[in-house]
C-alpha cells in the first residue's frame, strides 16, 4: 500500500499523461465531492434538527383552556393548581397576552388584537426528567377544569423527529451512493486507461516490470486526480454553503443547512475519502485488467 501512494516520478512517467480519463476522473471527483459535501451538510443539519426537536419537545407540553371570557381566569387558576400538585410537572406557567400574540404573529401579522378574539389560554408545562402520567392528568383536568385540553406534543413530535431522523439517514445513504458512484466511474475510467495502454503494459512487462509496479503507476495517477478533483469540488461546495443567505430564526430548517462547530472538519474528510475510493477502485481494476492481459 505504501508503494502505491509513495511518490515515484520516474514510475509515474511510464504511463502516457494525456487521455480523456484525466478529465473524466477530475470532473467526476469534483462533482461527487460537491454533492457529498451538500449531502453531508443535509445529514448533519437533519441530525441537529432531530436532536433539537427531540430535546425541546420531550420535556414540554401545553394545556389549552377554551372557556367563556368571564370564566377564563378561574379555569386557568384551577388548571395551574392541578398542575402544581401533579407529580412529574416541574413548572407550569400561563402565557401572557403578549406571548400568545407573538405565537400568532407569523400567521396574522403584528397588529392582531388578541384580547378581542376568542383565543384559548395556553399554559406551558415543563416536565421533570421522569415526566408525568399524561392519562392521569387528563382525567384530573377533565374533572376539575372542563375547558382544559392537555397536549403533550407526542402526536406531532414523533413524526417530526422521525422525519428528521429519516432525512439524516437519507443524507448518509446519499453519501454512500455518491461514494459508490465515484468508485464506479473511476473504475470505468481506469479500465479505459488500462485498455488504451495495453501496449505500454506489454513493454513494461517485457523489461521486467511487476504487476505491482504497473498497477502502482496507474493507481497513483488516478488517486491523485481524484484527490485534486475532490478538493476543488469540496472547496466550491463549502463556499456555496458559506454563501447561503441567513434568514434568521424565522428561516427554519433551510438556514440550518451547513456545518457548526467541529462539524466543519467533515468536509475536509471528503477529498481523502474520494482518493481512497479511487485508490481501491483503480487497484481492483488494475488487478483484473493485468490478469486479463497476462
Amino acid at each position, binding site marked *: 500500500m505504501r508503494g502505491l501512494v509513495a511518490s515515484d516520478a*520516474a*514510475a509515474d*512517467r*511510464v504511463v*502516457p*499523461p494525456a487521455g480523456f480519463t484525466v478529465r473524466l476522473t477530475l470532473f467526476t471527483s469534483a462533482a461527487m465531492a460537491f454533492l457529498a459535501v451538500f449531502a453531508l451538510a443535509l445529514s448533519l443539519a437533519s441530525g441537529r434538527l432531530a436532536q433539537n426537536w427531540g430535546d425541546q419537545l420531550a420535556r414540554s407540553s401545553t394545556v389549552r383552556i377554551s372557556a367563556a371570557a368571564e370564566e377564563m381566569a378561574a379555569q386557568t387558576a384551577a388548571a395551574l393548581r392541578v398542575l402544581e400538585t401533579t407529580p412529574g410537572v416541574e413548572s407550569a406557567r400561563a402565557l401572557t397576552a403578549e406571548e400568545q400574540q407573538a405565537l400568532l404573529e407569523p400567521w396574522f401579522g403584528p397588529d392582531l388584537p388578541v384580547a378581542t378574539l376568542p383565543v384559548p389560554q395556553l399554559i406551558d408545562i415543563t416536565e421533570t426528567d421522569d415526566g408525568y402520567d399524561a392519562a392521569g392528568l387528563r382525567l384530573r383536568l377533565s374533572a376539575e377544569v372542563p375547558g382544559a385540553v392537555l397536549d403533550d406534543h407526542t402526536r406531532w413530535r414523533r413524526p417530526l423527529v422521525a422525519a428528521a431522523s429519516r432525512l439524516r439517514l437519507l443524507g448518509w445513504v446519499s453519501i454512500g451512493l455518491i461514494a459508490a458512484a465515484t468508485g464506479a466511474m473511476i473504475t470505468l475510467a481506469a479500465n479505459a486507461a488500462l485498455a488504451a495502454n495495453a*501496449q*505500454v503494459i*506489454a*513493454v*513494461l*512487462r*517485457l*523489461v*521486467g*516490470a*511487476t*504487476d*505491482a*509496479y504497473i498497477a502502482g503507476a496507474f493507481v497513483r495517477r488516478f488517486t491523485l486526480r481524484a484527490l485534486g478533483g475532490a478538493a476543488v469540488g469540496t472547496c466550491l461546495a463549502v463556499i456555496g454553503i458559506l454563501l447561503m443567505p441567513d434568514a434568521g430564526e424565522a428561516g427554519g430548517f433551510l438556514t440550518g443547512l451547513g456545518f457548526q462547530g467541529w462539524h466543519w472538519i467533515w468536509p475536509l474528510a471528503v477529498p481523502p475519502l474520494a482518493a481512497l475510493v479511487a485508490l481501491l477502485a483503480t487497484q481492483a481494476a488494475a488487478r483484473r485488467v*493485468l490478469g486479463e492481459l*497476462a
Partner: protein
Amino acid sequence: MIELENVAYSYGGGELLSDISLTLAPASFHFLTGPSGAGKTTFLKLCYGALRPTGGHVRLFERDVTQMDRDAVALSRRRIGVVHQDCQFLDHLSVADNIALPLVVSGQDSAGELANLRELMGWVGLTGRADALPPELSGGERQRAALARAVIMSPDVILADEPTGNVDWEMSQRLLKLLVELNRMGKTIMIATHDLSLIRAAKQQVQSRVLRISNRRLQLAGADL
C-alpha cells in the same frame, strides 16, 4: 540458465510446438531458424516466460515457470534481455528514457546506473539521438535502441527475434557485431532469424549452434548452412 524439457505448446486447439528440449548454457550462441509461422517467436516467448508451456517444463534460472507467479517471472525477466522485431517502445518517452526503462522498473535508476546509459548509447551509436522520440528513429536506430534497452541491466541471456528483419545489410552486420561482442562478454545469445546470410556471417566470427524448428519440433541444423 534457460532449460526446456519436453516442452509442448498448443494454441486454439492446434499444437504449435512439440517435445522440445534445449538448454541454453552460459556464454553460448544460438541461432533459431525455420520458415515463417514455424513457431520461432512462440519458442522465444516460452524462453522468457511470456508464454507458459502446455506440456513439459520451462526452467528460468532453475525455477519452473509453471510454479512461478507473474511477478516472479517478471523478476526473472530482468536477467533476460529481449529484442523484438517490431521494437516496442513507449512513444511518449525519449530514446534515452526508453533505454533506461529496465533500470527504472527495477528501481536501479540511480545516478551511477544512469551514467552508464550515455556510454551504452555511444556503444550502439545513438549518442546524438538521446532526446529523440521513438517514432523519429529509423528502423536501424530502433533496433539498436532495442538492443541497448535489452542489455542495460547486464542480463545473462539475450533473446533477439528477427533483430535484422527491418534493416539493410550494413546495419544487420553492425547489429550482429554488437551481439557477438556481448557474447564475448559472457552473455548467452539466441537469435531467431530466417536470414541465412546473417548466420553464415556470424559463423565466421563466433562459435554458434544453429537450431531449426520444423514440423513443430526443434532440430539441430548446420550442414546446409
